[in-house]
């Protein structure tokens, strides 16, 4: 009775990948282990291979993409977020500079715009705090150009642009392309979009 209960416990607790009748050699090790547990294998060999390839490819994309777009420095951002210490000394009212760097790494336009990247005036304040001494102004400048190009191509969702405009996340240097794009859309969809006063 007690033995049965004990066996039940064991089965419930341990992973059963061993022949239970065999004596124990070391804590948890039995003298004979089953050759191959077919049910453990499933049909997963190729899935595992594909997953590993996916992992490696994702890494490759994360490194090669910034290289291709002329921002190789972003690959060695520590993401230690030391740049957050810029605080209210940032004239663009950006609070999370590290997010901008990471967004630049993979050309994540949504994150870059909504974290206030288009407000950056490239003053270099955050650079003084960077632990890896990245040339943040250069990175942000390159990214801003790419964002403008993407907006003109219509790659950036209008929802993002509308939100950014409403929150004042588009710097005055970049208002024109954004507004132009929105006006073009307005002609198409007849949605009322406020026309901001420039200068």
């Amino acid at each position: 009775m007690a033995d049965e209960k004990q066996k039940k416990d064991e089965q419930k607790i341990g992973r059963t990948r061993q022949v239970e009748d065999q004596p124990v050699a070391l804590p948890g090790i039995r003298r004979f282990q089953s050759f191959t547990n077919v049910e453990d294998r499933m049909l997963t060999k190729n899935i595992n291979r594909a997953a590993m390839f996916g992992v490696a490819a994702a890494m490759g994309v994360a490194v090669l993409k910034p290289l291709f777009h002329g921002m190789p420095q972003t690959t060695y951002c520590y993401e230690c977020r030391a740049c957050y210490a810029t605080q209210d000394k940032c004239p663009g009212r950006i609070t999370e500079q590290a997010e901008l760097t990471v967004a630049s790494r993979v050309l994540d336009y949504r994150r870059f715009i909504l974290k206030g990247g288009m407000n950056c005036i490239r003053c270099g304040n955050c650079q003084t705090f960077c632990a890896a001494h990245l040339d943040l102004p250069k990175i942000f400048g390159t990214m801003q150009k790419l964002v403008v190009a993407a907006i003109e191509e219509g790659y950036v969702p209008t929802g993002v642009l509308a939100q950014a405009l409403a929150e004042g996340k588009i710097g005055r240097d970049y208002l024109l392309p954004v507004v132009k794009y929105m006006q073009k859309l307005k002609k198409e969809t007849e949605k009322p979009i406020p026309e901001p006063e420039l200068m």
Partner: protein
Amino acid sequence: MEILGTITLLIFIVTLVATLLGWIKMPVQTVLIGITLVNIVLALIFFGLQGMADELRLVPADVIGRIILHPVTALLGGLFMGGVLGAAGGFEAIKAIVNRLRKTPLGLAGTLVILINIPLITMLPCGRIIAAALLPLLFMFGPEGSGTLRKTQLIVFIAAFARNSFGSCGPSPVGGVAQIAEGTLGGATFPDAAAGILRGPQVFSLMIGTAFMALFIRFVTKRLYPEDTVQIKDREGGVEPEIKVNWKGYTSLIIFALALLTATFISFIPSLKFITVQAIFVAASILIIIVCRVSLGDLMTGIILMPATAMVAGFLAAGSLYPTGGMQVLQSIFKGLAAFPLLGVVGTLVILVQAQTILPLSCSRILTAVFVPLIYVFGKGVGLTDLQIGIVMAAYIINATTSCAPSPLGGAGMMAEGQLRAETGYLKGAFSFTSLAVMAPLAAVFMRFITLDVFARNPQTGQMMFTATWGHLGQTILWSLVIMAAAYGLIVVMSRLITASLGRNRKVLIASFGLGGVLCGISLALALRLGEPVAGTSLGVSLVQGIIGGIIAAVLIALMIQVSFAGPPLKENVQAVEG
């Protein structure tokens, strides 16, 4: 959006728990990549249905952007170094040096203590770098090798080394886990946080945690091997085999040490700040290859793909929660918990601190990247001060870095277990228990009394405060001693209760974990309260809340540990040792 967030979060957590409990028997990378794909497909379907088709284009970039590249590459760079060092005989040189140390006044005991703490001294970004190479060497101290140590001693020795090595990613200044939190803390209150605000508490609690881990394993192992008093293999005439190390070993070791020192201190030299750890490691490895004439292939032998790939897959899986809104749902869940009167803010914080030990993945960075911003936002949301967020963060990070040790998914603790030739799970209980009951409270206490006063800026003058006093020192020591005494009592009582029955052992395990949780809850609540009141609760209420939160977290951890530390029944075990 909220429905989508809830679904993706559920998929993430349920799949992870199923993998941890062994219901899904696949490598963790496959599981995580699967989660990512499913989440992305769900997001595509939902966005498509809602007519937000132009949002779809940005989803892949958002997910890939969540990969934190630096720790992965730093880890791979470190593994390069490990491979080259091993090929050039650097680790043999360490062994020779240790052998020589034994004849100094330090003796065997002192040497072993230093050896256990080598990972803490070198502080590489992943414990595996040094553990993979040194564990086989350390194993040779045991009955199968030189026979210096008995079997029980060997188990304690290896377990303590593993504990130390797999916490060393926390205080590492070269891409360590703590850096993620340090930067997040950086700001108005701690402008120099990135200079190491979390490293002191990490080192402190890791040192003591290692010792307690050793104590824990000793008591349990004593029960498992009551008869193990004789050395299995006698030394023949007391003559030990001489270790031959050529100049290559010493040279490579020196280059390694120089590279480490450079990597550690380079961030303090402004003009050289731009040189990254990876560059230093690669340069040093190539230097060793040239000087010691090692083949280029040896560079690769050190690579353990598992942590790197698991990390990337984990970042991707966690990243798939961002565009789908899973993160907001997670935040609101914790906010809801905090509104629950029995748990309150303190109880929720205690659970949050243990979040990573509850879901032990093979690399702590996978979830740290998710939880650190979450803790910060949550803390700000419920009105914690910056000091209190710092305390929570210190306790959280030490638990996070510990979580790779008890992980059954190829966690680092498995390396130690495999080295001991034990079933997976033999050391897990001890790893989890010490991180729950000893390390997190100690980190909080150290952060509260010593570190914060060094880093905090006076709100009136804007100057840095350096107000750590002798009183603070005394309080740190006092609190640490109280916590350590309580943990010691717990360990002793619990080890007495272990018997031949596995079911009973499991109950003992859960009960002792619950008590550990109580200890953790009380000390965290006190550490938080000693700063300023939390969310307007009285001291008694926050203590109760902390205790409840601690018990919930501890029971969850105990349930996640599948195999109890007791291993197989005692009777059978003794037979095996005898026969």
